[in-house]
């Protein structure tokens, strides 16, 4: 996503387009445009609109303007602010650990002579094909504290205390981060591998002639040139992390005691489920603003990195 040409240089066609052809072109662009306006543009502005009203299950048709009341409630509610903070923490941790594990994996699977690389790639990538919902159930069984939970049985066997991974409010969120890092590291690895493969081998040869060791080559050549892949992973995994929902449903359901309640969980369970639509809309707009600020800062940081590399 980060690699899109934002300048939008549209190719100039030299010949004139006939009126009939223009009409056909217009027809071709219509389906996407209509769907887009109906399902993306309109809901966004409608949400902004709802956020200034007392729209709720009690006022489904007779809702009225309440000014900034909803926003004041969101910004003074420790529950809602904690939800945003928790989602941010989750997204940052998930992204950081994914990069931490996927970069060495990708380097080993691209730059060394080990055998069976394609089998290894397939194996590491495989969890990414499975739905997050099912991944969550699998780990619920593995982490279970009941008689069959294999991981806790193993802990007991070596004399360690049982850990209630998804039931202990202090560690539940980190346990979920763990399952998602497990699931998505292979995906990140594939993207980084493609990036490493695109680095000209002459760079490494020149570095070797200058006597650079493998570590120096990684620090000086590989890592700085991983900028495109890392941008893609950081942006999509942060945004994906902030939207996390499915994995929460199948591991903790937002509990224990709200310790894993995330933004989407709040919007779906409390705003839609509880019928507080105006308040939920204000919460969504705050979420949108947080996301926008985060994206802008990220883009700035990543662009600066790109400029430094190009110098």
């Amino acid at each position: 996503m980060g690699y899109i040409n934002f300048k939008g240089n549209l190719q100039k066609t030299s010949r004139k387009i006939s009126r009939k052809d223009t009409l056909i072109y217009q027809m071709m662009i219509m389906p996407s445009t209509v769907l887009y306006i109906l399902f993306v543009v309109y809901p966004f502005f409608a949400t902004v609109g709802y956020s200034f009203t007392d729209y709720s299950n009690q006022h489904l048709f007779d809702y009225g303007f309440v000014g900034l009341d909803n926003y004041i409630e969101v910004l003074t509610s420790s529950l809602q602010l904690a939800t945003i903070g928790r989602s941010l923490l989750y997204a940052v941790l998930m992204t950081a650990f994914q990069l931490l594990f996927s970069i060495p994996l990708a380097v080993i699977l691209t730059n060394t002579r080990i055998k069976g690389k394609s089998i290894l790639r397939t194996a590491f990538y495989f969890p990414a094909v499975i739905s997050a919902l099912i991944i969550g159930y699998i780990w619920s069984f593995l982490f279970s504290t009941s008689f069959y939970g294999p991981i806790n049985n193993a802990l007991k066997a070596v004399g360690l205390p049982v850990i209630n991974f998804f039931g202990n409010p202090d560690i539940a969120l980190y346990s979920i981060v763990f399952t998602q890092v497990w699931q998505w590291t292979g995906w990140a690895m594939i993207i980084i591998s493609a990036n490493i493969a695109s680095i000209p081998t002459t760079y490494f040869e020149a570095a070797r002639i200058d006597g650079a060791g493998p570590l120096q080559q990684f620090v000086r050549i590989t890592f700085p040139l991983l900028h495109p892949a890392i941008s893609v992973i950081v942006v999509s995994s942060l945004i994906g992390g902030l939207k996390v929902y499915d994995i929460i449903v199948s591991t903790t359901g937002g509990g224990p005691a709200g310790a894993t309640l995330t933004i989407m969980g709040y919007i779906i369970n409390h705003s839609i489920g509880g019928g507080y639509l105006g308040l939920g809309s204000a919460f969504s707009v705050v979420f949108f603003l947080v996301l926008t600020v985060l994206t802008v800062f990220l883009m700035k940081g990543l662009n600066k990195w790109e400029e430094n590399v190009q110098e």
Partner: protein
Amino acid sequence: MKKGKEKFARSGAFRISRTKRQIKTWAATAAMFALAVIMLIPIYYIVVSTFKTAQEVTFYPLAFPLEWHFERYITAWKDMHYPRALLNTLLISVPSVCLSTLFSAAASYAIVRCPNRVNRMIYAMFIAGMLIPGNVSLIALYKLMQTLHLNNRLSGLVVLGCNGVSLMSIFMMRNFLSSSVTTEIENAADVDGCGLLRKFFVIVLPLLRPVLTTNMILSLVGVWNDYMSPALFLQDRTKYTLMLEVYQNVGQFSTDWLTMFNMLVLGIAPLTLFFLLLQKQIMTGVAAGAVKG
């Protein structure tokens, strides 16, 4: 892992003697395979457990079954209404993947080949939309689906699926179209008197095939695995997708814990098959979609 990389990177190995290097290569290979096995143990555990008795699962979690039991698959198959759920999932994912890919291809073609004012404005709107992650507007979307009577309908999810993936596709195809050399072939087609629509379907779409495949694969995995949208917009059990059936049975703990393993495996099975058949395309697609997209 980092240590392994430093030690075994080919680039650093040229000073070490040949045999030593070979030993290191094999040691690194063994270490990586061990890591892969450890990573996949959770999935192995679930799959192997589906064939075992409760006692075996509890006391020998990783062992092969002494006797293979298939009967719980029959229970799981029935409880999940498997054929119906599979059909519902197909009825949602196949049309939405095909339609969204076709719509995106058509739109990006128009944007690239006919950059007039209207199309430039629409393109700018698409770019601006990247800032709005769909879920922000979920409340309004929820209401809209009810207003349009798309709630509790498979077709409603098709429409949602179409719209959810199309933007990414438009960017990818636009980049592909403006960087590839199709204009010459298209001009030749013009000389031969080939109409615009025919040109699009007969010449441009086949040329776009690599991008189209990538798009279709990525969006299929996304739509297939999605739990949130079907959970929000489908209420009748008869319309449930695979993921909803998994949730209904496993999440609500309405069956015994052993049969749940079989349900999870049945839930994973179709996409796993798809992945094993098309793994090369899927993984190159992921890389291309991310880096070129």
